[in-house]
């Protein structure tokens, strides 16, 4: 809340800076009547002062907020007696947590002694001091920045160009965030994955047939050293993706063909938005439907014809995922079909072929690259889909091609390895990042190839 007050104060100072900058520029030329003597419109002098007042102060504020906790924890650890500061990292972490809880007045785990109470008091003192320093520094810099800007205002000062320059930098910064996000994804996943591969060899991860990521809690425990062969996960992902595509590709493609070629305008006007609703339903809702409606239904249906069906079968997850992907396939196929020049279609029809022959023998071959690109994007979507499989597919890492058995996927394992509190540097947690790396690389390749296909194809007929 104190931060909120500070931000409000900064905002007030910024508006004051704008007003003062504007007034000073007009005062220099002797009032609004002589505004044309200024290089820029008076408002730009105001914006110039505002930027100088606000930007450096905000930068300092953000930096302070980000490093404050680390510095304070370091100071507290420094001030602890030697016996405590020589503890292992985990114990120290727990101690610091306890001190923080104590400082906030919450319940703590373990015993409380005088040392800790001292540390907690010091913690509160440091926080209070840091807050005071931050407020003074931020407001001071805002004031100094505004004053410097005010002093620079002259009638011939090129305020508009300066302001536009800064706005341009801000625009560039905003557009680089997309790049930064990609770099962030690659680095965060890659670093943790490398740490994982230091403990588990890459070949075992990629080609091992056994996945059981339980690690021993005690060193003398039996049979829980953990094995990280990810082939069952890849196979499970592949199985569910295949089932999904078997549902989505024919249905999506035929839907696109029917809506583009056969349906009346009224049917299209109703059916298209309805199918788009399918695309807008959150995946967790599909997961709920797969787990509580489709899976029991498949199970009873299978039992009635004497099939052994697991309650978390790959089929249920795959089927529902296929339904989810239908709109994606059909809209991308629709684009591809519509991009085929109508001369080709008219020519085929004019030579006497039926509509279905035109479609199968002329339009679809011409649209094939676009459709294939769309299917690749759909596959990438199916591989990365998480909630449906988390809720409807199992956790058992079976290496099987039987759709009635339970399988697990890459995304399911990422979620199960990372949900809940874990030590961040155990192989078990790091394995999730290795799986994330595989997932990112595979979907990235599929996306790049798919997007290239779609774009190349579109250009071909434009």
């Amino acid at each position, binding site marked *: 809340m104190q931060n909120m007050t500070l931000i409000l104060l900064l905002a007030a100072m910024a508006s004051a800076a704008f007003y003062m900058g504007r007034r000073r520029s007009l005062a220099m030329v002797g009032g609004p009547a002589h505004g044309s003597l200024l290089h820029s419109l008076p408002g730009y002098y105001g914006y110039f002062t505002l930027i100088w007042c606000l930007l450096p102060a905000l930068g300092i504020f953000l930096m302070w907020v980000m490093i404050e906790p680390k510095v304070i924890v370091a100071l507290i650890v420094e001030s602890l007696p030697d016996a405590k500061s020589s503890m292992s990292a985990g114990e120290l972490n727990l101690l610091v947590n306890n001190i923080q809880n104590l400082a906030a007045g919450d319940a703590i785990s373990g015993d409380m002694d005088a040392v800790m109470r001292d540390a907690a008091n010091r913690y509160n003192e440091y926080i209070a001091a840091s807050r005071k320093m931050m407020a003074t520094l931020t407001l001071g810099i805002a004031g100094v920045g505004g004053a410097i800007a005010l002093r620079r205002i002259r009638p011939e000062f090129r305020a508009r160009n300066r302001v536009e320059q800064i706005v341009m930098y801000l625009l560039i910064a905003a557009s680089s965030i997309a790049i930064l996000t990609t770099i962030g994804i690659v680095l965060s996943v890659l670093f943790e994955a490398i740490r994982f591969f230091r403990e588990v060899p890459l070949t075992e991860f990629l080609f091992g047939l056994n996945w059981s990521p339980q690690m021993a809690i005690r060193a003398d425990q039996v049979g829980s050293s953990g094995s990280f062969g990810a082939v069952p996960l890849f196979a499970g992902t592949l199985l569910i993706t295949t089932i999904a595509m078997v549902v989505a590709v024919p249905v999506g493609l035929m839907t696109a063909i029917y809506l583009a070629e056969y349906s009346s305008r009224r049917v299209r006007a109703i059916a298209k938005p309805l199918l788009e609703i399918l695309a807008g339903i*959150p995946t967790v809702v599909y997961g709920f439907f797969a787990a509580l409606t489709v899976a029991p239904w498949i199970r009873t249906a299978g039992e009635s014809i004497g099939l052994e069906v697991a309650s978390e079968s790959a089929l249920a997850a795959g089927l529902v995922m296929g339904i989810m992907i239908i709109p994606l396939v059909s809209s991308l196929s629709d684009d591809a079909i519509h991009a085929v020049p109508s001369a080709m279609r008219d020519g085929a029809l004019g030579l006497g072929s*039926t509509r279905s022959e035109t479609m199968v023998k002329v339009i679809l071959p011409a649209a094939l690259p676009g459709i294939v690109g769309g299917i690749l*994007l759909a596959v990438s979507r199916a591989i990365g889909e998480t909630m449906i499989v988390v809720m409807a597919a199992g956790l058992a890492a079976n290496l099987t091609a039987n759709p009635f058995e339970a399988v697990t996927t890459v*995304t399911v394992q990422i979620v199960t390895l990372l949900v809940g509190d874990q030590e961040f540097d155990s192989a078990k947690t790091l394995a999730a990042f290795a799986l994330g790396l595989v997932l990112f690389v595979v979907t990235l390749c599929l996306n790049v190839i798919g997007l290239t296909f779609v774009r190349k194809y579109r250009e071909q007929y434009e």
Partner: protein
Amino acid sequence: MAGEQRKSREIVEAGLARRRRKEKLFRATGLVATAAGVIFLGVFFATLIVQGSSAFVQTFIELDVEMSEDLLAPDGELDLQYADFDGLVRNALRAEFPDVSGRSERRELYRLVSVGAGYQLREMLQADPSLVESTVTVWVPAASTVDMLVKGNIDPSIDESLRPISDAQVAWVESLQEAGRLATRFNRALFTNGDSREPELAGIKGALMGSFYMLVVTVALAFPIGVAAAIYLEEFAPKSRWSDLIEVNINNLAAVPSIVFGLLGLAVFINWMALPRSAPLVGGLVLSLLTLPVIIIASRAAIKSVPPSIREAALGLGASRMQVVFHHVLPLALPGMLTGTIIGMSRALGESAPLLMIGMVAFIVDVPGGFTDPATALPVQVYLWADSPERAFAERTSAAIIVLLGFLLIMNLAAVIIRKRMERKW
């Protein structure tokens, strides 16, 4: 020549019936495929509504509670925090069924009423302390098993050991029903409570507030950044390798699986920047990265649709390029940008996989009051409840989904209306 002509004519005619059959079949397949999607949608909404609508009402039991001072304040001092309100409820139940004796029978009797009854009495007394020593008639929530029985989700005719409610309890419920002391009413708890282990007390308010705080962060970050990026790429970026790279990048980011963004959030925001776990602030940061590509792509399309004549006219009158953009292009492109932003937000509202990674799946009872309080989100609440074994949670899950889909519907309608009303054809 003439013979040949007749020959090819014969060939064509011979094949005509087969070709027409094929044509019909092809057309029918198309129709079936289209219908399949639409039928699924119908089945889907029908099951949701059938399962979920009953969660909007809740069974209540009327009790005459004697606010006995002996029980509330045994040592003469009334402490609302520790007073035995459950004892009051138990007494009232015993008074209702005086002929129930024996410990285990009584315990069964007490289980008719939710543990929330005691809290309700405490709140009553807190609001009006003069109620002590009087007898009040209150409607208290029934236990979820009773609720399920009344709603017909538990069949009383099956064997006693197969259902979570005993024969004696069924008999008591029936006698309450006959006396008119049992009724179903609107389930306010669903909208005013946070999560709970007891289905009859569990509500979605905590999840709703969590989603709300997250969306605030997401809009505040993703909208300005997305619009700024779109302006730069569309109006100022030189045709260089760098801007090509950004362009390819944005298209790819839009197709990266959402769970990967969760990994990014866990590694960068939580482990590196040490932001709090389970906080809407972190959720909002991750979701804004996730929706940024959507907003950028929509905003670029909106800027592209502004005709160049507008820019040329403004430039001709002496405006700088920055002035052209901010005074003329941006206001004209705003409706399209807003539509894109709303669609991005509706995607963010339905997203749950990345939130699992940053710890927003914790069981949180308190309704979050700020951006750094532990919170969960509406879709994650759906996920949590869907995992609960109680029958009563299944109906609540459907109800939460109905609420979630309701919000998505409103957002998408808003987007459509903005597009329809403010769209300009040049």
